[in-house]
């Protein structure tokens, strides 16, 4: 297991039943390594993450988790306990009567199965996860009363509580203020130090440089994969974001294409 990458995609494609998708995926993530998934809106970043989770069918190539190839289609291979997923937080019902602590405990359910109820070890894992994201003081608070950034960190704690080998994050920095952003960056660094592999989709190139070891550029298909400095070149980014409007502070920039392209 230590020799094999946590995630390997070889010529993989994930396609929604509607036809949209992302293809030509060739990448490897080792334990303790973080990979940034970068591309414009609609490039298939979320589709890639959901494909790895088994929520979008794989239509070509191979996907291996911990060196073990997984079946085609939507088999719920995530049941093997290796994966955790941090969704974009906005779409959860803020009126649902549940405390932060109870949300984090959901991360332990997969290990418990149907019949067993959380025990002392599970409560300890929840407390650890809350401490890692710096929310121990708010454990008993209703989840819906937390700020957006705190909710995001709470969901990250839920992902941590499941002791994943690979953590998938979908745009975790969208709409975060600076303190929450810093807390998230610190947490990701700590996770890497513990040997957790991370695949994070983001618009934030700066973040990729801060936390990630490698970058995969996608726009419908994979354009590049490799170390941050080699992939995040002007030419690559231009090719990926060609014609896309980028907002930098208050300015809007339309990325020009290559000359003679």
């Amino acid at each position, binding site marked *: 297991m230590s020799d094999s990458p946590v995630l390997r995609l070889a010529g993989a494609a994930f396609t929604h039943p509607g036809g949209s998708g992302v293809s030509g995926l060739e990448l490897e993530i080792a334990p303790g390594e973080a990979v940034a998934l970068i591309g414009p809106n609609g490039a298939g970043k979320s589709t890639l993450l959901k494909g790895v*989770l088994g*929520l979008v069918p794989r239509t070509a190539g191979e996907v291996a988790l911990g060196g073990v190839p997984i079946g085609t289609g939507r088999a*719920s291979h*995530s*049941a*093997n*306990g290796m*994966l*955790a*997923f941090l*969704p974009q937080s906005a779409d*959860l*019902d*803020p*009126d*649902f*009567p*549940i*405390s932060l602590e*109870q*949300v984090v405990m*959901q*991360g332990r*359910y*997969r290990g*418990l199965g*149907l*019949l067993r*109820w959380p025990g002392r070890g599970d409560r300890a894992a929840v407390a650890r996860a809350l401490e890692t994201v710096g929310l121990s003081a708010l454990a008993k608070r*209703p989840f*819906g009363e937390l700020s957006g950034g705190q909710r995001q960190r709470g*969901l990250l704690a*839920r992902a941590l509580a*499941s002791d994943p080998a690979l953590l998938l994050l979908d745009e975790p920095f969208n709409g975060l203020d600076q303190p929450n952003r810093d807390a998230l960056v610190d947490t990701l660094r700590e996770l890497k130090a513990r040997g957790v592999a991370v695949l994070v989709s983001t618009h934030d190139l700066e973040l990729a440089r801060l936390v990630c070891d490698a970058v995969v550029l996608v726009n419908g298909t994979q354009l590049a994969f490799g170390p941050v400095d080699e992939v995040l070149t002007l030419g690559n980014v231009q090719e990926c974001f060609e014609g896309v409007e980028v907002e930098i502070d208050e300015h809007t920039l339309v990325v020009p294409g290559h000359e003679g392209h």
Partner: protein
Amino acid sequence: MSLIDALFTAFSIPFMARALVVMLVLAVVAGIVGVLVNLRGLEFISDGLTHAVFPGLAIGLAVGGTSGLLPGAAIAALAGALALTWLDRAGITSDAAIAIVLTATFSVGVIVVSKSDDYAGELEALLFGRVLTIPPEQVVPLVVVSLIALLAVVLTLKQQLFRAFDARGSRAAGDSGLALDLVLNCAIALVVVAAASTVGTLLVLALLIVPGAVARLVTGRLWWLFPVAAGFAAIGAWLGLAAGFAVSVGAGVDLPAGATIVAVFVVGYALVLGVSALSGRASRASRAPRSPRRAGGAATSAARAAGTAARAAGTAAATGAGEGR
């Protein structure tokens, strides 16, 4: 008649004792299942199941008499649960489509019942139940059906709550949404089955929806929802039976028991709503309707409760001499 007589002594009469046992078990189970109905916003599917069960009851009655009620209802309810789970997953949630299917099943039931000799009596019993005339041999089957529903929900409770809160997260954690939906819809169906032969298919909805809605008003703590809903339902069933008995025997006005129970539920809901509005909890909850889905769900619950109250009032008025005939 004294209060003590109505609340306690009345239940030493065998038919009242049977009614109390069945109603207590049913109310507690419906209360617990109803919390999930509330959290998932499944009021419409529950309504659908109450209609789908009706032709099953009618056919069961036509084929096997009163002992055919339970099997007939169980088959229809489970078929209905499968069909509604499928409709939901296929994305067919148009009210019109489901309403057409439901009225179709209801009309099949009415046609079957109309072939029986005592059309009006049978129809009334199926729609409004006969909790005071539950035959002794049906007590155990009704309790067993209720307990199976309870078991199905308790065994999957953690996962059901996870799915209710975050469906995508629950899928990502390896839970099957289809399996969880099937289990929950079948549990709802079994509650409808047990309730159909006691309070009738039209009033079942109150048992499933009112206790859950009350619990949401009373507490914001997840695990308190279940005992609050179950306790409210049990007290409501007991007081409803006692009130029906007291009025029927004491005042000589024959109150239909099922409708009286539902009326007590709805009065209890109104009281809790009033108290929580005064104490500010409701205003806090409605302060910022950040989630349109949940706001709609709460409105749906309230509307359903109101509709059920109207039905109960209508039953009480229309069937004046209902139970005794």
